């Protein structure tokens, strides 16, 4: 996430993500609006992380895994996963292949590509930075 003249932060609130931009040196929050992309963005990150952790997996498996690790904090349709998977595949971060599941069912398996691995690293770092900045910011806000 580029940090430049204007800093933009995205906070998941409920199942809607809000995007805020803070002009440098000012302490006021500007709410610029909902962005579906944000959910898609964090979802993409979660997919990549899942594939890194578990290796090749089908869509249903990914959905279940995300649901479990997230502790059902946000309840979202599994269906929203599929456009995200397609997007990642189009971008070359994941690749798909038809295979056979544990209980002998035909399923489409997704796996992380090398570009995907790098992207995951990058995204994770950005996300950590963002949350760190936001945390500091919120802390300073409290003091003020």
């Amino acid at each position, binding site marked *: 996430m580029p940090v430049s003249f204007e800093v933009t932060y995205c906070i998941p609130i409920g199942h809607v993500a809000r995007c805020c931009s803070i002009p440098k040196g000012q302490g006021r929050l500007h709410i610029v609006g909902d962005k579906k992309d944000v959910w898609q963005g964090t979802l993409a990150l979660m997919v990549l992380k899942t594939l890194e952790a578990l290796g090749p997996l089908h869509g249903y498996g990914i959905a279940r895994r995300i649901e479990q690790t997230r502790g059902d904090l946000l309840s979202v349709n599994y269906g929203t996963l599929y456009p995200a998977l*397609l997007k990642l*595949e*189009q971008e070359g971060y994941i690749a798909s292949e038809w295979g056979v*599941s544990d209980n002998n069912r*035909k*399923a489409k398996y997704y796996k992380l590509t090398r570009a995907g691995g790098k992207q995951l690293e990058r995204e994770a770092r950005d996300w950590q930075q963002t949350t760190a900045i936001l945390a500091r910011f919120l802390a300073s806000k409290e003091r003020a």
Partner: protein
Amino acid sequence: MKRIHSWWTRLRGLFRKEQLDRELDAEMASHLEMHIADNLRAGMTQEAARRDALLKLGGVEQTKESVRDRRGILFLETLLQDFRYALRSLVKNRGLSFVAIFALALGIGATTVMFSAVYNVFFDPLPYKNFSRYVVFRIQNLANVGGWKGRDFFSLEEVRAFREQNHVFEDVVVHNGYRLLYDNGKYIHHWPRGEEVTTNTFEFLGVPPLLGRTFSEEDSRPAAPPVFIMNYRLWQSEFAGDPKILNTVFILDGKPRTLVGIMPQRFNFFGASFWLPMSDSNAAGSVVGRLKPGVSFATAGADLNAIAHQLQKENPQGIFPDKFSIVPETLLDSFIGGFRKTLYALLAAVLLLLLIACSNVANLLLLRATVREREIVMRATLGASRLRLIRQLLAESFVLAAVASVAGCVLAYFALKGVVALIPEGTLPEEVLIRMNVPVLFAALGLTLLTTVLSGLAPALHIMSGDLQSRLTSSGKNIEGNVRHGKLRSSLVIGEVALSIVVLISAGLLMRSFFILTHADFGFDPQNVLYFRLALPKAYNTNIDVTREKKNALTRQVLARMQGLPGVTTVSESMLEPPLRYDWSDTIIPGKPHTERWETRFEVCSEGYFQILGLPLLHGRLFSEDDVNANRHVMVVNERFSRQYFPNEEPIGHKVKLEVLDRPFLDAPHDTYFEIVGIVPDYKTLGDDGRSWRAFPQTFIPYSVQGFSHRTYMARTFADPKVLLKNIQQEVRAIDPSVEIETSGTLTASLHEFYRRPQFELFTLGSFAFIGLVLVVVGIFGVMAYTVSRQTHEIGIRVALGAQRRDILSMVFVKSLGIIAAGVAIGLLASYESSRFLASEVSGVSISDPSTYGVVSFIVVAVGLLACYLPARRATRVDPMIALRYE
């Protein structure tokens, strides 16, 4: 990179739709299966497990839809949809589509042809480096009265001065025509004209040789071995393209010379067939300069002008008119001259044609859009956005234009060959290749887009304007809408008619002018006259006093031998052959002062000239063989000369001077007065406009008094000119083996060659006019057929109320006559204004020639009414019973 990859897969997604859909179905199915299985394991009932899985997924169809959206490119997909839909509806209306494509293909094809010509002639004509900065220049006489008009040949000192003192040229080359005799071991003959050029010429032009090398500076040194370079045409015609002749020795003008290079096909600098090196210290001739970047023509002209005037001051003996200026010209203009105007005029005409085609297609689309109005309104009501609907209509006209464009290009490819074949030889330099190429195809693509917008936008916007909703609720026959569309349709047809009138009148004027040109009575019979000129070796051109007698002796012998040949009735010698070629002079008659120029055309000829042209003696006497042999200063004049300069006098006995003979560099009787001895009738020669035949004041003097002129021989003959020419060649060789026939032909053949230029213009413009007329017929027919079909109901009522066949016919014809008449009126006005541009192409007929205007109007009205005939006939066959039920 990532983005490109993403777009690429998405683009691919557009075309692998079915396979991807199948995979998506399978993926969804497997997802659900797995989920259901899990739920069952967790203890749910079969039905609950299924329900939960579906719920969690958020709907199979919704998921599929959101994946599909992501898969392709939505914008592209709807665009493809538009095109698919457009194609389908165009295929459904085959007749209309065919007519529209036909009209557009004609328009686009014709435009592409003209654009190819214009592009290749003006933008990419010559293969030379930076050719647009090449400048040629000449000294132009500014005097109104007297003297010669100018020259572009410069002496050694002048060339050196221009070369060294100018501030405007990067580099200059000097070139000078050269004729030489080639001895192939069997016989000696002339090669086509070549040039002596300064050794920097080939580097200047930036064209590498096809074989061998070009000149280096050493080649022009006096001690250097003599070399030469050959052009492609000569190489092919004389040596069958044999590469082994390179670096061999040729006997040229009796001396050995080595061939060091052969130039590629598209290299014909100044039409030379060979090039000899000319040393810089020896350079005299015409000059071509390449302007420094950023230097304008005016600057160059002023700079050279100053140098030339300085030269005149330093060298009062030099050949300069009293008042002159240097006139610079681009190399291209010096080659092409007036043809530029012709091409632009034709391009303008062809654009009019394209406009006609576009309005035609606009009309047809509008016509169809009206039929489809309900469909469009329905789609708008169901939620199609206006933009989407307009896009849809534009997609249709784009498909039409694209197909027409391809057809037009194919048409243009063949038509171009015809047009190129029609362009008279010598109009364009040989380097110019007119052909279809990438820029031309890009232009055709541009035309496609242009025609899409021109022909599609008006109908699209028109149909979309106003309140769509209310049109849905009104009945099927929307009177208000019909009237609106009807007006636009009529004005489109009026515009078409007007435009076609403009093109037709231009073509008509050209046609009349061409007819007058080709059916002129010259005052002599050009049939069965052979002419030829002799190429004389250097021996005839060295010492003035000796060579004049030598030439005269040759002439006498040639004439005598020609007369003895079978099939020859009369023979003559003259400077040039009528009626295309002439020389003229300012005329001075003692005791007759005048302020305006007295231009007289003159001939230096043998006594046989009058017989060969069949000019009877009117008064006095003709000059005799004796006069010629004795070099007497006698003169025969024509009637017009006598009328113009001696209106109330007897011209015989007066003395006349031809100023042209006073030029210092001519072997001519300077400051000599000729006595008028006889008067002959007028004959016509080519007018100053180069497009008409006129009688001018003319004088004739014996050829023997001078030694400078061309020697053109004519023979009136009933033998085959080819055979005769061969015989003459033998006779000439017998007199002097080094003399050869240079140019030859018959007067009629040279006239036909001359007619090719106006013929080219007439043919191209005529075809455009014809195509325009065809398009107008299609336009009128379309509108009237449609109008009649929409009026079936009304006609039915009229017939039921007792209207006769005649009434119905007149109803249809009156309406179309109104439209046509309006178009004709506007077209005539526009023609009156625009035909001024044709003035230079037309002669012998006024550009507002009433009969041309009348005939063209009549043709358009007649053809227009003919186009209404079918619809009108259909109207009369309307059965009232059916028509009244017809909704």
